[in-house]
């Protein structure tokens, strides 16, 4: 099969142009990373000074805090769209301006509400509404991540406050569905996808953290629905990566059941890290792989650390899990060697 076979006739010309543009020889030489970092830091510091100037010189009240925030956000969006090929400094300045504007709008709404109603619910609803900005208008990974993280954090915190695990699961399900829709259904690489992946990881870490606190023990009871949400996501990834003929092979099914069982015994975060690793390896996407590689040890360490058993029992559990992993590695390795020797014999 050639690349051409995957394309319709009307896609041939733009495809050739895209491939020629992405050819290593056509790529422009870039500034060193450290210069980008320095410029980004200065953009952020300059924006903070500008914000300090606005606050000190204007001393805004509740409604003008919101208005100034909206003004800053509007300015950032304007610059963002007028400077398509902006350098690091301009890009980071608009980003920081946008974030300052966003936070000022959020604070403005809370101040206008005058803490009359449920503060956390107000924050959560306002933040969710404000998420429309990073999703459709100002598509920058860092902004999308912070906006999503804030929304997820407010809702999760509210769910804990109200002792409503269903709300937590709903927030997680919405995030995972959006991630699946972006990466699998639309098959697009987008900064929003990376932001969502990080946000889901952070939400799951937040869940682990809550569970490690004795006073919120009620969240402990029903971990399986959370595991189920992630397991469905993992199954969907497998479905997209595996050829139809291989999907229902006994080996694949056994591996999937083993993975899900392992995660059901430990934490949903572990299963999500495995899902990201699988997606990252399947697409050769360094960001999903990197997130998975960071998530895997983080969730494992947190899980074993927060186990309420003696050090000796912990040692036993760790040893057993380690031996299972090594056994799987050995079986996979020996099956590979067997396959190679059969191939050599056939030749």
């Amino acid at each position, binding site marked *: *099969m*050639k*690349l*051409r076979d*995957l*394309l319709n006739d009307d896609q*041939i010309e*733009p*495809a*050739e142009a*895209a*491939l*020629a543009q992405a050819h290593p020889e056509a790529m422009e*030489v870039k*500034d*060193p*990373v*450290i*210069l980008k970092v*320095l*410029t980004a830091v*200065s*953009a952020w510091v*300059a924006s903070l*000074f*500008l914000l300090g*100037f*606005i*606050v*000190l010189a204007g001393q805004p009240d509740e409604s003008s805090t919101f208005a100034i925030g909206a003004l800053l956000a509007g300015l950032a969006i304007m610059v963002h769209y007028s400077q398509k090929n902006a350098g690091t*400094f301009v890009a980071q300045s608009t980003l920081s301006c946008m974030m300052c504007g966003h936070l000022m709008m959020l604070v403005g709404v809370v101040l206008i509400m005058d803490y009359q109603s449920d503060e956390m619910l107000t924050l959560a609803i306002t933040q969710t509404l404000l998420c429309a900005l990073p999703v459709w208008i100002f598509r920058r990974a860092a902004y999308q991540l912070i906006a999503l993280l804030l929304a997820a954090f407010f809702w999760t915190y509210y769910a804990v406050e109200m002792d409503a695990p269903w709300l937590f699961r709903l927030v997680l399900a919405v995030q995972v569905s959006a991630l699946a829709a972006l990466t699998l*259904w639309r*098959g*697009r*690489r987008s900064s929003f996808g990376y932001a969502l992946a990080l946000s889901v990881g952070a939400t799951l870490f937040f869940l682990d953290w809550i569970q490690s606190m004795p006073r919120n023990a009620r969240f402990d009871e029903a971990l399986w629905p959370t595991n189920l949400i992630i397991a469905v996501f993992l199954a969907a990834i497998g479905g*997209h990566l*595996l*050829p139809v003929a*291989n999907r229902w092979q006994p080996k694949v099914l056994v591996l999937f059941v083993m993975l899900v069982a392992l995660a059901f015994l430990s934490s949903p975060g572990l299963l999500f890290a495995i899902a990201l690793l699988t997606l990252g*390896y*399947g*697409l*050769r996407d360094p960001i999903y792989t990197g997130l998975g590689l960071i998530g*895997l040890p983080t969730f*494992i360490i947190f899980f074993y650390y927060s186990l309420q058993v003696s*050090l*000796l029992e912990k*040692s*036993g559990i*760790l*040893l057993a899990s*380690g*031996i*299972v*992993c*090594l056994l*799987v*590695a050995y079986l996979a390795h020996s*099956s*590979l060697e067997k396959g190679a020797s059969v191939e050599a014999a056939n030749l």
Partner: protein
Amino acid sequence: MTKPLLDQTPDHRSLKVLRDAGVISPASFWAGIRQMNDPQEWARWAARLCMVLGSALVLAAVVYFFAFNWDALERMQKLGLLQALTLGALGAGQWVGFRRLGGQLLLMAAAIFVGVSFAVFGQVYQTGADAFGFFGIWALCILPWVLAGAFAPLWVLWFVLVNLTVWLFWNQVGQFNSLLHYSYICIPLTVLNGAGLLLRERLATRYEWLRGRWLRPLFLLGALTPLLIPALDLIVDSSAGGGYAMFVGSVIWMLCLGVTYLYFTRCQFDSTALCIVLGNAALYLITAIGRMLEEADLFDDGAGFFLMALVIVGVTALLVWWLRELSQRHGSTAGSLQ
């Protein structure tokens, strides 16, 4: 003759390029991905992942087991255990081969175990020794391995230990009950890391393991940062005492900036190193202007904040322009490997 781009078999890179350009439909993209999926590659990947995970879990189990029994262990058993770990890592390194990455990592592990052994020794016998002695002895003991190991991260570990020794010696003994200003310790730290940089520059042509791109910026930062602190302190709070020491520190820092700037523009062009040098100068300039604005009482009504924002924008723009100009003159923006 090379094949036309679209007549090649699909690979991950070209599929991703077409996807990002919005040229290919999601269904075709996944069909291409599925076509490239080799079950054997997946099995190899899973085996490697399980191997790393399993080894880490078993090692953690061993650590937990000894942590559980730590109080019950005799002194000699505790120390013997760590010695056994050190020797085990060395033996395994010898078996793997010290010129291979695995062997070098094991040598590094052995060097870390030496430090842990000294820490446990101090805890078991309550020696009451100063912390600088601990780091100093540790650095001295692993020096032969550092010299023979030919492994850059081990070299960096050794320099970190020596830096810690010097800094802690100053904190615990050298400052003579706070009679001497801290700027005096920044000079030896700069000399030490500068010597590291110099060694790296001299030996990199002969030894390949010293040619890593990350090593030069690391040593350069280590050499310039200690003296940047008194230089900035002299601007921000010159009335707090130690003015002479800070002045000496600032002069040496400026000399270092000049020398490194000349070296990295004329002898060995490296845009990353130049960015560090010019970034130091930019930070100094911004702090100096900020101090002037503060002395003019411009921060009280907010005007100083606005001016500072403009200053930061201006200095950063100047830095970027200067660096790009230098890079264009040398026909490259990428950091040199040498």
